[in-house]
């Protein structure tokens, strides 16, 4: 059964040393604030397949010991300052990737196989810095070289979605990668805008846009829980806030000041 819990109880299920998968749309920002408030450390973060302010906040707060990602960027607001500084100082183990390789790793994880073949990549220096990726001769079918990447099986997947029902089914729309993250992970923790009384699996059309509660360990309500990121069909991104973050996070002191305000704001909203 999926537990419906408070935001603090939800993030208490994330332990230091665990790997944590986070998406690029459906970003659980309120949960990230709660996680940082709880003093989380030593997270091995997997960005699916890239991240922005969420990864930058976690890095800046010193909560990340390893990072696998295809990119970290604040989009229109520019580069991710704490990520950039952390790379330069060697603050975390960096596992550079490319978007479809992260998705292929998760696919292997969801299928319970040790690796997944993937097209392209050959010739990229990513193969040099990712000794866990191999180039093999395809053992079956067309004779050709193919890259294989290991399964990604995160300890925890954390994301934010519009709705859950009382049973813990989550409406994810067409963001199928959120389902794939949950399939591959040992547990999935989800924050939602609201919990609805109707059964989200009731009709064929509705069920097609749902991650079933089978894969969901716990749900917490967090209104505007993706802010300042956007949530499809619910609210646009707060570009001015991301730009404010980008400017402040350029220095360590500025970042600390932003983080303090970000955590205070969450307590006021909650």
């Amino acid at each position, binding site marked *: 059964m999926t537990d419906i819990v408070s935001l603090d109880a939800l993030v208490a299920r994330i332990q230091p040393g665990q790997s944590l998968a986070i998406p690029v749309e459906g970003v659980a920002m309120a949960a990230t604030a709660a996680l940082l408030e709880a003093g989380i450390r030593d997270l091995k973060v997997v960005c699916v397949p890239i991240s922005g302010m969420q990864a930058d906040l976690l890095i800046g707060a010193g909560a990340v010991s390893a990072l696998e990602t295809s990119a970290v960027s604040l989009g229109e607001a520019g580069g991710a300052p704490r*990520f950039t500084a952390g790379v330069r100082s060697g603050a975390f183990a960096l596992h550079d990737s490319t978007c479809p390789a992260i998705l292929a790793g998760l696919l292997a994880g969801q299928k319970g196989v040790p690796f997944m073949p993937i097209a392209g990549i050959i010739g990229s220096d990513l193969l040099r810095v990712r000794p866990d990726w191999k180039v093999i001769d395809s053992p079956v079918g067309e004779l050709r070289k193919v890259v294989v990447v290991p399964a990604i099986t995160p300890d925890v997947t954390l994301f934010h979605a519009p709705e859950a029902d009382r049973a813990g089914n989550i409406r994810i729309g067409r963001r199928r990668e959120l389902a794939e993250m949950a399939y591959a992970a040992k547990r999935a923790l989800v924050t939602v805008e609201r919990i609805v009384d109707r059964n989200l699996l009731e009709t064929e059309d509705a069920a097609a846009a749902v991650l079933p509660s089978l894969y969901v360990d716990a749900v917490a309500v967090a209104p505007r829980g993706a802010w300042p990121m956007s949530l499809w069909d619910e609210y646009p991104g707060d570009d001015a806030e991301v730009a404010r973050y980008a400017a402040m996070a350029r220095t360590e002191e500025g970042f600390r000041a932003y983080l303090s305000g970000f955590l205070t704001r969450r307590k006021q909203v909650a």
Partner: protein
Amino acid sequence: MASELERKEILITAIADLLDGIRHVAVGASSPIPAAGAMLLRARNEAAGKPPVRISVLGSQKHNFFTNGAVEIFDCAAQGRIDAFFLGGGQIDGAGNINLVGIGEYPRTDVRWPGSFGSAYLYHLVPRVILFREEHSSRVFVPKVDFVSAKATTPEVARRGGPHALLTNMALFDFDREAGCFRLRSVHPGFSSADIRANTGFDYEQPATVPTTPGPDAATQSLIRGRILDELAESYPAFARTMKQAA
């Protein structure tokens, strides 16, 4: 010297020409000029009764018909259903390799950029990759990139994808996949071939006389300033507004 508006119109027109003949082009969420070029091709084809052009704007809710999550665009490219795509680079070298990672010794690079995104994969699979980098300097166009995010040619493995052209604020180059190098095709108004040589850190081929990149004709220009800017405003409002005001 062309005005800022004319500069953008030349780039948009050049992109539409480079895309001629494609059926489906994918465009990044923060790439208004490539998107405008694709929209110009779509409008032109429509007027000429040519086959329609499909444009996927990544990250856009409205102009994105994918339903299978983040993986679908990559699967779609592997199936041969995406004909053209745009890539940039913090560094691009004379062999067409691109670097989206950083400058210096990896991993603790002195300069760090966001990361490779999908480039290492899409460069192999999309037949017509247009390298688009507005800044034309020897800082960007280097003899050899510090980190190969995506390799332009791989004689050791068969591939259908790779660079087709390189478009900058100053010039347009073709890429020769056999030779693995760029060839200057044209220079934008206001620049000479000597300017290009002085601002390009890698070697490239050059014809005896280098033509000027054509700007839009009157009909194309009014199409850009009308319909294209209106279409563009849905996904790139700030960019479209600036262009509209200048026009």
